C-alpha cells in the first residue's frame, strides 16, 4: 500500500506543466490526489512521471464568465461548496459537491480532478453533462474547448489527450429547477445510481460506463447497468425510474 516509484515534478506555471506533459512519456497530473493517490497506493496506476500542479499560482479561482461559473484546476471541492457565487448562480453545483465523499476529502479534492478522473459513479461529470457545460484543455499545442457531451468516453476515460491539462471547467448558470438525487449505502459513498436534473434535462450516473443523458419520460430506456454485491442491474434500473420521478415531481 505504498506508491510505486515515479519521478516527481512540481512546476510553478501552467506553461511548465504543459511542457512537462508534452515532453515526458507516461506523465500524470496530480491535483487533489484523492482518487490518484489511492490508485497509486493500490498500484493500479504506475505513471512514470507525476506532475504535481499544486505549486502553480493563480489556478484556484472560481469566477463568473459567459453566463456561468468557471472553476479552475486547483479550486478545491470544499471551496466550491462554500462559494456564495456558486450558491447564487448554480445551486445545483453546490448541492452536488456536498455529495462528493466527505468534507475531509473535499478539502483536498478538486472539481476539475473529478471531471478528468471520470469515474462513472461520480456526481460532477453528470452535473456538467446535464447542464451542458464545457472544460478547457491546455497543452503546448494550444488551448481547446471540449463540450461536456464530448468529454466522457468510457470508464475513467476522457477526450483529454495525454499532454493536455484540464485548466478550467465551466458550468452554465441555472437557478431553477434543478435536483440531484442518489442512492448510496452510506453518505459520501459512491452512488449505486443517481440522477441530475438541470432544467428539463436529465443525466444519469452509476448506470453506464459514462454519465448519460436520458429522457425524463423514459429514463431507463436502453440502459444496461452492471450488477455487483451492492445492487443488481434490475435494482439500479428501478432506482433510475424512482429517482427521476422524484427529481421531476417538484
Amino acid at each position, binding site marked *: *500500500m*505504498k*506508491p510505486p*516509484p*515515479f519521478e*516527481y515534478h*512540481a512546476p510553478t506555471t501552467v506553461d511548465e506543466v504543459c511542457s512537462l506533459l508534452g515532453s515526458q512519456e507516461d506523465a500524470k497530473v*496530480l491535483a487533489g*490526489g*484523492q482518487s490518484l*493517490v*489511492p490508485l497509486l*497506493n*493500490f498500484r493500479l496506476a504506475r505513471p512514470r512521471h507525476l506532475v*504535481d500542479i*499544486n505549486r502553480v499560482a493563480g489556478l484556484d479561482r472560481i469566477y463568473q464568465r459567459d453566463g456561468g461559473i468557471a472553476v479552475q484546476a486547483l479550486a478545491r471541492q*470544499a471551496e466550491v461548496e462554500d462559494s456564495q457565487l456558486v450558491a447564487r448562480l448554480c445551486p445545483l453545483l453546490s448541492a452536488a459537491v456536498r455529495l462528493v*465523499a*466527505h*468534507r*475531509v*476529502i473535499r*478539502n*483536498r479534492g478538486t472539481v476539475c480532478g473529478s471531471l478528468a478522473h471520470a469515474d462513472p459513479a461520480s456526481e460532477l461529470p453528470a452535473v456538467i453533462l446535464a447542464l451542458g457545460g464545457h472544460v478547457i484543455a491546455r497543452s503546448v499545442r494550444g488551448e481547446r474547448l471540449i463540450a461536456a457531451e464530448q468529454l466522457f468516453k468510457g470508464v475513467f476515460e476522457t477526450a483529454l489527450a495525454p499532454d493536455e491539462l484540464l485548466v478550467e471547467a465551466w458550468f452554465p448558470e441555472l437557478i431553477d429547477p434543478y435536483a440531484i438525487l442518489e442512492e448510496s449505502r*452510506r*453518505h*459520501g459513498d459512491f452512488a449505486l445510481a443517481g440522477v441530475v436534473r438541470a432544467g428539463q434535462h436529465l443525466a444519469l450516473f452509476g448506470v453506464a460506463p459514462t454519465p448519460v443523458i436520458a429522457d425524463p419520460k423514459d429514463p431507463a430506456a436502453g440502459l444496461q447497468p452492471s450488477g455487483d454485491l451492492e445492487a443488481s442491474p434490475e435494482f439500479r434500473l428501478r432506482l433510475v425510474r424512482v429517482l427521476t420521478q422524484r427529481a421531476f415531481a417538484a
Partner: protein
Amino acid sequence: MKVNGVDHPAPTDTRRLLSDHLRHDLDLTGTHVGCEHGVCGCCTVLLDGAPIRSCLMLAVQAEGHEVTTIEGLARDGEPLHPVQQAFHECHALQCGFCTPGFVMSVVGLLAQHAKPSAQEIDEGIAGNLCRCTGYASIRRAVDRAVELKK
C-alpha cells in the same frame, strides 16, 4: 514544513506518504494508518488548519505548509484540547485506534460549524470508521466539545 509548530525539512524520498513521514521519520505515531486509501479516516491531520487524509498526500507536498497532528493539540502536562476532553468524558473511544482521526476530523468540523446540527455532526464524522463504539458516544462527544469550547 512546519509540524506542530516545529520546522522540519521535507523528506528527500518523494514517494514518502505524509502519514509515513509523520510516523517513521518524525516519530509522531499518534497519527494512525488503517486502510491507506482514504476510506477509514484514521490518518486525518490538519493541513493549514483544515482536516485532510495524510495517507493521500505525498510528504513533499506539505513543504511550505503547516501540519498539525494529534500530538499538537495539547502538549504533555497541559490540559487536554476540548475535543479530547469531550471524547474522554463521553467514553467516545474503546480500543482507540480510530480516535486520533476522529478527534482531528471533529476539530475541523467545529472550525467550520461552531454549533453543528445533528445532521452536520453525522456528515462531519461520516468519513471516519469506528469498529467499537457504534458512534453514539462519539456523537455525544461532539455536542460536549461544543459546550467545553464556550
